[in-house]
Structures are given as structure tokens and as C-alpha cells.
């Protein structure tokens, strides 16, 4: 086995040439391409890392926003609940007040109805009582009863005080002692004297007493002096009684239906200016 030294040298050179060729056309371009790809991949990885970091930051921001939103929502919800609770209480209070008001109105109405009923009842009772008394006294009226009434009238005349006394004195002065006594039944002389005796204290002049009988008068006696009239009649007595009872009842109802009512009393006689039809 021989070595061809020319071939040996040529192969040596060939190999060096091949190294140069491959370095120029293979290793250099391939390595450059791989380096560039690696660089690109690294750049993309870096970009991906940056994007991931940005995305994570955005996620954190959105999470923070969501938490804030939830907190605000809870707060709002709490406020709404409180407002609703407050409104509910207000409505309940309002309804309660309305019910109370209606109940009060109903009680008031009931009370007024009762008072009205009681007042009506009292008035009817008074009216019935007075009517009964009037009928009884009319039925029982006679000379005896009139004598009793006259006695009561004379006693009242004898004890006039204050305003009534002055009025009567003035009336006598103006009429120069003239007076008219009227009764339903005829008066006896004694009775006329009693009246005269009672009136004498008020008349400065001599008494000119005129006695008349008027059956329409019913039970009672009237004395007219000028434009003044002193009387004790059953009609007036009862009318006074009704007026007083009415006043008392009204005063009683104003104070309250449960306040004790005083028993009304009618004055037996009064001095008043003569009224038409009186």
C-alpha cells in the first residue's frame, strides 16, 4: 500500500478548501439563523413576560376595582336597607297614628252621640216633667191653691232687694201709685189687703189698687205697675224652670257629662219688664 504524495497533498488542500466552503455556506449561515431565531424567541419570550406582567397588573387593577365596586355596592345596599327600614317605621307610625286618630274620632263621635242622646233625653225628661206638672197643676188649680200661690207671691214682694226693689219703686213713682192686680180666681178682701200691705213699702203716694179676674191666667197672680209687672204664675214658673234646667244641662255638658249636675231651682217670682204676651 503506497501513498500517492501528490494525492495526499491535494487531499490536504481539498480538506482545507472544504472547511472554508462549509464555513462560508453551512456553519456561518446556519449559526446566524439559529442565533437570530434564538434572539427572536428570547425577544418574544421577553415580550410575553412583559405582557403577562401587564396582564397581571391589569388583573390586579380590575380586582381592586371590583372590590371597590362590591364595597360600594354593599354600602349602597346598606343605605337602601336603612332607608327602607326607616320608611317602614315611618309608615307604621303613620298608620298607627291614623288608626289612633280614627279611633279617637270614633270615640269622640260615640261620646258626642251619647251626649247628644243624653241631652235629648234630659230635655225630653224636663219637657215631659214640666208638661206633667203643668197638667197636674192646671187640673188641681182652684181658689185654695191660688191662695197658696198668692201667699208665696206676697212674701216675695215683701222681701225685694236691690235692682228689683228700685225698679218697682221707680215704677210706682212714675204711675203715681196706680197698680193693677190680676188673678184667675177672685181675690178675697184679705188677700187684696195683704197685697196692698206688701206694695205699700214701695209706693211713696197712696196706693190706687185695681183688682181684676182673668181666667186665662191659670194659676198665679200678676201686679202691673206702669210698664212693670211683678207676677207669680204657673206658666212663668214652669218656663223659668225649663230655662234654668236647660242652662244647667248646657253647663253640665260643657264641663263633662259625668260631672254632677246641680238641681235647678226656679225663682218663684221675678221683677221684669213686661214683655208682649207675657
Amino acid at each position, binding site marked *: 500500500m503506497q*501513498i*500517492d504524495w501528490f494525492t495526499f497533498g491535494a*487531499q*490536504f488542500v481539498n*480538506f482545507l*478548501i*472544504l472547511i472554508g*466552503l462549509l464555513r462560508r455556506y*453551512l456553519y456561518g449561515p446556519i449559526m446566524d439563523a439559529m442565533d437570530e431565531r434564538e434572539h427572536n424567541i428570547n425577544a418574544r419570550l421577553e415580550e410575553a413576560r412583559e405582557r403577562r406582567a401587564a396582564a397581571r397588573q391589569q388583573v390586579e387593577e380590575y380586582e381592586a376595582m371590583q372590590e371597590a365596586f362590591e364595597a360600594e355596592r354593599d354600602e349602597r345596599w346598606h343605605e337602601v336597607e336603612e332607608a327602607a327600614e326607616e320608611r317602614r317605621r315611618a309608615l307604621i307610625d303613620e298608620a298607627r297614628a291614623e288608626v289612633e286618630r280614627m279611633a279617637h274620632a270614633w270615640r269622640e263621635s260615640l261620646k258626642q252621640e251619647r251626649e247628644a242622646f243624653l241631652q235629648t233625653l234630659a230635655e225630653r225628661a224636663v219637657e215631659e216633667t214640666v208638661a206633667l206638672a203643668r197638667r197636674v197643676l192646671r187640673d188641681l188649680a182652684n181658689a185654695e191653691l191660688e191662695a197658696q200661690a198668692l201667699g208665696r207671691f206676697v212674701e216675695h214682694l215683701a222681701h225685694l232687694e236691690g235692682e228689683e226693689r228700685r225698679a218697682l219703686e221707680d215704677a210706682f213713682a212714675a204711675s203715681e201709685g196706680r197698680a193693677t192686680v190680676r188673678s184667675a180666681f177672685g181675690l178675697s178682701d184679705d188677700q187684696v189687703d195683704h197685697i196692698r200691705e206688701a206694695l205699700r213699702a214701695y209706693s211713696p203716694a197712696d196706693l190706687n189698687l185695681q183688682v181684676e179676674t182673668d181666667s186665662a191666667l191659670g194659676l198665679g197672680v200678676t201686679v202691673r205697675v206702669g210698664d212693670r209687672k211683678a207676677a207669680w204664675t204657673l206658666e212663668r214658673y214652669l218656663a223659668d224652670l225649663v230655662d234654668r234646667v236647660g242652662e244647667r244641662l248646657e253647663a253640665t255638658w260643657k264641663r263633662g257629662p259625668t260631672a254632677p249636675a246641680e238641681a235647678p231651682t226656679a225663682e218663684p217670682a221675678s221683677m221684669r219688664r213686661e214683655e208682649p204676651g207675657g
Partner: protein
Amino acid sequence: MDISPDQIIYWEWGVVTLNATLVFSWVAMALLAGGAWLVTRSLTAGPHPSRWQNLLEVTVLNMMEQIEAAGLEQPRRYLPFVGTLFLFIVVSNVLDVVPGFYAPTASLTTPAALAVCVFIAVPVYGMMSKGPMGYFRNYIRPTPFMLPFNIIGELSRTLALAIRLFGNIMSGHLIVAILLSLAPLFFPVVMQAFGLLIGVIQAYVFAVLALVYIASGTRVQRQQDAAPTPASTS
């Protein structure tokens, strides 16, 4: 029967002879350089390289991994030399199965030339790493008495490198030729396929051995550099 493609001479002028070794070396070189040129004309740095680019990238990457595995820290410095060794030998050996192709490695001249290249490359790379003095100092270590043995070792391993490749490839030819005379059908085909495997393995062995020699030329330096450190356990 032609044992060596050196003996197939196409043209001759004085000492200048154009034999099969040279011609088929050029064919292999043309295939390698032309193929690389064709593929690298349209390289892309994008994520979808072409199949051929992918093939070349995988090849280059694996060669660089092998260089790194041998203990060399800068594979790009050694890639052109070692990678070209491997590619030239493997292409020559594999093309051997093509009828009419004579593998240049089947001639002793080509492995010898390649081995001399390695013989030169080892000190060159060594001196590139540490400088001439640093490299040649390795020959007198551990003692100057080891200088002859080191020189003999350097020469003998170069010779062994050349003879190993030549013997394996040439023997493949020889076996096929002998088997053709004994059993002309089928069995030579199996041996041809076996020859492909042997060709690839020998290319790998040649390149890795070159790599190991180069690495030993620099690794010794590093061990010596690290020796003064008392804490070193290597």
C-alpha cells in the same frame, strides 16, 4: 481488483495525477458545499424553517453538543474543523454504496491527509488557547524525560487514526468483493448495508477521536492551571 482508488487514474501529467480519490473527493465536496449553498440560500429565522434547513440545523446542533460533551467550552471555534471532518467522511462513506462511486476514504491517502490535518490542528488549537509556550510545555510534563514518549504518542495516534479509517472502509470493499465471488446473491447486499453502518460509525469515531485529541491538548493546560490551587480536588 483495485484495492485503492488511487490506482484508478483518469489523467496524468508528470507527478500530477487525476485519480478516483481526488475526483470523488471533489464530488463529495461539491455535494456538501452545493447542498449547503442551496439550503442556506433561503434561510429563515422564523419559527417555521424548511425541512432541509431543519436537517442542517439539527446536524450542526448535534455536532456542537458532541463538541461540548468532549469538554470543549467554545464549540463554535472547533465546529468548522471537526464538523467538516465528520461530514466529509460520512458523505464519502455513505456514497460508497452508490454503484461506480469510489469512497476517497478507502484510499490510505485520504485518511492520512485527514489525520495529518488533525495532527496539525491539535497544536494549533492548543496554542490558540494558551499560546505556543504553554502548549509545548505539555511535552515535557511531568518530566522532560517524557518528551520522546509524548512525541511518539502524538505521531502514533495520528498514524492509528489514519490506518483505522482506511482499514475499516477498505475492508468493507474487500469483504464485498470476496463475498461476491463466493455468494453472488443477497449476502453482498447485507454486507453493503453493514458497510453503511460501519461507514457512519467510522466517521463518528474519526471525528470524536480528533475532538478528544484537541480537547486533550487544551484540557492538560487547564488541569495544570488549576493545579496550584490547594482546595482543588480534581
